[in-house]
């Protein structure tokens, strides 16, 4: 369960006069669900990269439960993200040579010397929960909807305090998209995780508790 507090955040890229992201102040309560909307180029991806520690914040403070990840070095942010964040991305980033179950467990395997106890049964439960009947099936042979459901299971297997989804339904047909949206919201609520979803999908947006609208890197009222 993570609460976000952003203070005086500015992200600038070389050669650009205006900051890509300029957030004087923003808070999210633990367990809150928020939709991140805005035209492309408005800073949604930068926002996600910063709050998940995938990119270094230029200046300011990005604190999750009072831990300022903007002050952490790269390795520290990686470790923090591995412990606290579950990611779902538009194009899945599953590894085609591995089974659904191996994909769900891969981040855990890579960040721990030994797979934590109970992780495998949790992976199976989650896969069953998202409707994957054959965990041993190679993920490259499944449909796109199934792939995104595997990705949702992967995001949740480590019991993260924060789930971040970047356009999770954008590359799916309407039916699969709806199923993935349902799963994301339900599972985040069951786990009590904070959920941030960047999306253009109206049905997904309206299920979020709050909408953050970005325009030119700033929060619109």
């Amino acid at each position: 369960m993570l609460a976000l507090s952003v203070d005086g955040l500015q992200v600038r890229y070389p050669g650009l006069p205006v900051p890509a992201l300029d957030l004087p102040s923003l808070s999210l309560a633990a367990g809150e669900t928020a939709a991140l909307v805005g035209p492309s180029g408005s800073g949604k991806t930068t926002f996600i990269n910063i709050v998940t520690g995938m990119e270094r914040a230029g200046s300011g403070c990005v604190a999750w439960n009072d831990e300022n990840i903007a002050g952490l070095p790269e390795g520290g942010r990686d470790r923090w993200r591995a412990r606290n964040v579950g990611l779902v991305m538009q194009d899945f980033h599953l590894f085609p040579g591995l089974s659904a179950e191996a994909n769900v467990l891969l981040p855990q395997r890579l960040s721990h010397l030994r797979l934590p106890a109970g992780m495998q049964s949790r992976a199976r439960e989650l896969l069953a929960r998202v409707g994957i009947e054959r965990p041993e099936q190679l993920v490259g042979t499944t449909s796109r909807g199934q792939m995104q459901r595997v990705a949702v299971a992967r995001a949740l297997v480590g019991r993260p305090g924060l789930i971040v989804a970047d356009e999770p339904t954008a590359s799916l047909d309407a039916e699969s998209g709806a199923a993935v949206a349902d799963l994301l919201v339900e599972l985040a609520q069951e786990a009590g995780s904070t959920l941030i979803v960047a999306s253009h999908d109206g049905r997904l947006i309206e299920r979020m508790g709050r909408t953050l609208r970005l325009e030119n890197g700033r929060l619109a009222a």
Partner: protein
Amino acid sequence: MFHFILADLRRNWIGALILALLIALATALGVSVTLQERALRLGSARAAAAFDLVVGAAGSETQLILSSIFLQPAPLPLLPPETLAALRADPRVENAVPVGFGDFVAGYPIVGTTSDAVEMLGGLGEGEGFSHMGDAIVGAQVSRAIGDSFHPFHGAVGEAGEVHSHVEYRVVGRMAPTGTPWDRAILVPIQSVWATHANHDHDHGHEPEQTAGLAAVASVPHDHGHDHGPGFAGEAVDESELLHTDNPGVPAILVKPKSIADAYNLRQQYRTETTLAVFPGEVLTRLYGTLGDARRILGFVATGAQLLVGAAILMVVAVHVLQRRRQIGALRAFGAPRPVVMGMVWTEVFILVAAGVICGFAIGYAIVRAISGYLARNSGVAMPVEFQPADLWTLLFLLAACAAATLLPALIAYRQTPAQALRS
């Protein structure tokens, strides 16, 4: 982690296989140059080691060694019979055996010598030694069974010769394998060779031939009272003939001195205007000196090819890793620590390269085994194809170099943030 690497290799197995194969072939090239040169050098050195000192008439030292040890046919001038008689009587000499050639049968050179030669070369494997003029002892690789008979052909191996139809030899023994060209030789009493050629040339009324070897035998007066007609095969071998000075002489004498000091003394004494005495080793060393340059050039070519292949492969791997930036970025986004990702990229590339290098050693070994086997069958010189401790260091050095070189793609994977990698 290994699970993931294996899955990735399996997915790109064609590319991986081609890459490993390229590395293997480049490595095999270098390995086979080294191994083949070593096999030739050791093989010829071991073949020569059975012979301590070779005495011949003045002429080319190299040709003397090639003819007497490697049994390469060539016209050699003859030593006067006194030389053989003196050497056989010399107290410093344990053994002095004549070598006379000039005939062959079915591609095998026929060497006229004495039964001492068999002892000198390691003894009989089966059967018995000479006792009659028509007896023959075959080398270990000669495909003639004991009891077989044959007519010798006049001339040298590979040339069309005329058959000595009036002479017939019967195989009575087989030598133990020696690993020298003598494994392909057929040994007959030198007295028979003298007789055959005297007889042959008398029969045909040839002019004295100047192409020495034993073809020149006919030019030597020949009146020691034996009947050299077609029926000589049953006669006993007369060893005393070797001590007479009325035989035609021989082109070369293999000498086994009693001690090293004797060897040097004899070599000194027989280096005269008319005779030549050499240690086979010294001639071979000189030959290797010449061949060494060729080997060095081959070695440079092989190394150059390896470097080029290595650079090309490194490029391919680097491009491959760059193409996989998104995958690598995703791994990190999902929480894989940076050193783990770097380790995975490094391990995957290193597995390919190391597998290629190790296969290359195996392929190089197999190629040289095949070539050496072929050479050994044709020359009789056993070619030892062997790795030496130094090769292990070469292998370790190569692997270490590969380990260092494959850090490059791993570092590419290390340097970028997950956000950069995913954006690309």
